[in-house]
């Protein structure tokens, strides 16, 4: 036990003093704070000065148009898009030139009220002019139709204003609103396992390449060494995750007045879901950390880790996608399968708990399977760690490793 604690402390200290760890924690923390602060100020700013800024993004925008229907005129367009100015072109060539030279930010060639061509010099993802103009033509078309059918536009507006109000009472789990935070949690877990798994594998492989391993395995039991190393990696990940979670929660609490509870559905996660996330998440993390440890022990040098870890990374990504799809489709059979198979249950079970009611016995059964698998893989990893790290030179395959374990 003393050896285990010694290894744990030594390895944890290495993780916590690692520059990449410190810098990534600071950068991700700053991004979280920025994401929770800046939009809140922007939202608040747009709410308080709504009257002044209601003209939107069209301020000082100039457009050029050709109207073949005769239904439009410059005054109407300027009134429809407040703050904009409009130029009428004689033909399509003039319209194009005006846009190309930058005299107008966009051009519109209206064939009839159902068809028009939109000209823009550089298309932008955030350009809403086209949508606004479509809406304008739609309104003109509606007005003309109402007039032709002698219907009072006010009556039509009243009819459209009618809406049915529904109140939902969720007796089980509110899968729809739980979806977002569940997705965030499994995605965070996915990232943590991939990042720290790689770190653990590299750390073990480098002990092999710098030959420290021979002294290690003759100084302490291989169980103490690999369990200490893997759990140190797990703790480093948990510490980083907890810091970022606390930072996000704290920032949101401080900015709550600005957000007006808009993100409560993410931050007000039920305690039982957080608890199951912690238990299943940590066990799953350890399970994959041991597997990455095996990969590290089988690699000849740390540069080999990327190639060696590809198969397990693919298994892990497939597991993540499977759980994600099961969550998205709400397919209870898929979720049930994902919540029992140990390679997916650490994500699958708490996702399932967030989406539907799960009997306690099923949760415990899944937990027992996951614990047994993690311990089993941990023991196998520790044996491979000792053997693999002493096999220098030749390429080590899983088959040759099992053979060496038999020979040992």
């Amino acid at each position, binding site marked *: 036990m*003393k050896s285990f604690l*010694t290894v744990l402390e030594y390895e944890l200290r*290495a993780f916590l003093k690692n520059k990449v760890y410190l810098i990534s924690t600071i950068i991700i923390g700053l991004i979280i704070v920025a994401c929770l602060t800046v939009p809140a100020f922007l939202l608040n700013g747009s709410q308080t000065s709504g009257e002044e800024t209601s003209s939107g993004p069209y301020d000082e925008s100039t457009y050029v148009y050709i109207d073949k229907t005769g239904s439009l005129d410059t005054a109407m367009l300027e009134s429809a898009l407040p703050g904009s100015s409009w130029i009428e072109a004689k033909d399509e060539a003039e319209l194009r030139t005006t846009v190309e030279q930058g005299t107008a930010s966009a051009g519109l060639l209206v064939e009839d009220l159902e068809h028009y061509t939109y000209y823009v010099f550089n298309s932008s993802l955030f350009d809403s002019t086209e949508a606004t103009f479509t809406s304008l033509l739609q309104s003109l078309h509606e007005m003309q139709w109402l007039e032709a059918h002698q219907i009072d536009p006010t009556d039509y507006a009243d009819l459209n204003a009618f809406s049915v109000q529904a109140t939902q009472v969720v007796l089980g789990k509110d899968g729809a609103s739980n979806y977002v935070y569940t997705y965030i949690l499994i995605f965070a877990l996915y990232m943590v396992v991939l990042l720290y798994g790689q770190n653990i594998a590299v750390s073990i492989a480098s002990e092999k390449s710098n030959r*420290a391993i021979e*002294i290690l395995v*003759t*100084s302490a039991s291989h169980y103490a060494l690999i369990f200490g190393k893997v759990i140190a990696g797990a703790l480093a990940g948990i510490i980083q995750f907890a810091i970022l979670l606390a930072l996000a929660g704290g920032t949101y609490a401080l900015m709550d007045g600005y957000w007006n509870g808009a993100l409560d559905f993410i931050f007000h996660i039920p305690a039982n879901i957080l608890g199951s996330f912690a238990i299943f998440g940590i066990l799953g993390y350890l399970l994959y950390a041991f597997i990455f440890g095996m990969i590290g022990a089988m690699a000849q040098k740390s540069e080999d880790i990327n190639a060696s870890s590809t198969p397990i990374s693919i298994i892990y990504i497939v597991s993540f996608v499977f759980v994600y799809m099961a969550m998205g489709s709400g397919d209870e059979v898929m979720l049930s399968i994902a919540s029992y198979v140990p390679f997916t249950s650490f994500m699958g079970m708490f996702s399932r708990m967030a989406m539907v009611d799960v009997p306690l016995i099923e949760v415990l059964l899944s937990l027992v399977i996951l614990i047994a698998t993690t311990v089993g893989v941990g023991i196998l990893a520790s044996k491979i760690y000792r053997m693999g790290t002493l096999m220098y030179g030749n390429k080590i395959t899983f088959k040759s490793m099992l053979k060496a374990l038999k020979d040992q």
Partner: protein
Amino acid sequence: MRLEVKDLHKSYSGNEVLHGISFQVESGRALGLLGRNGAGKTTTIRIIMNVFNKDSGSIEIDGKPFHVNEYKIGYLPEERGLYPKRTVMEQLVFFGCLRGMSKAQARSSAKYYLERLEIAEYANRKLETLSKGNQQKIQLAQTLITDPDLVIFDEPFSGLDPVNAKLLKDLVQECIEKGKLVIFSSHQMNYVEEFCEDVVIIHHGNIVLNGDLQAIKQDFGRGRLVLSTTVDDKIIAQLPGVKQIVPGKHELIIELEQGYEAQAFLETLVKQRIPVLRFGMYEPSLTEIFVEKAGDHA
């Protein structure tokens, strides 16, 4: 204390690499464990260190089964390795604690050895910033940090200049004088001859030589004489009793005929007024013995 290795057998994938290795090492008498590359030395050491399991055989200490975790062991492996990116003190304390010391004890012992090895100023430096020789000294400090009962040195002098080699020699000698069990594996025979009273030579997984080094040398001398003189070799070759002479750099190695005594030969030299600068029994070097026992023609 006496460590006895008895009839060790070890196979890898059906291929036996140790075919019954037996030897013993006693406190205060260092054992030189010799052999060519791949002979089985490291496998034997790893079995003693419980890194590998043996197929059969036993290891005993004072007649009782030897369990590696019940003793303080210092191991300087042939494959050197520590953590290049950690500080010297940090990793020495780590290895000390890993072998059962408290942090304070490990720190104090690390300080002692760093001072003793004249590298105390590097305590807070990262290992990778040190020269190869100083890194080798750190390895030695980690080997001795627990004041071990059994010390295994596998090629301890590689990478050391003569001044640092002297520091290491003093430490090895100190271990022997303190009555520790010392196993010394090296290809540098001069060091083995200097430290070891007993030697074991392993060849292709078999013990081909085992025993007191001095007795082995006498036995390998096979009654040959060494003579240093000013007269021509041909005159010596014609003296009565001389079977064969082998000219050396500064002396002749003389093999006498069966039954002809060294004393009688000396009297002949005196009678014939042949100047004698040096006369004695021939003692082969360990290198000669090693080549004979583990060379290509062995």
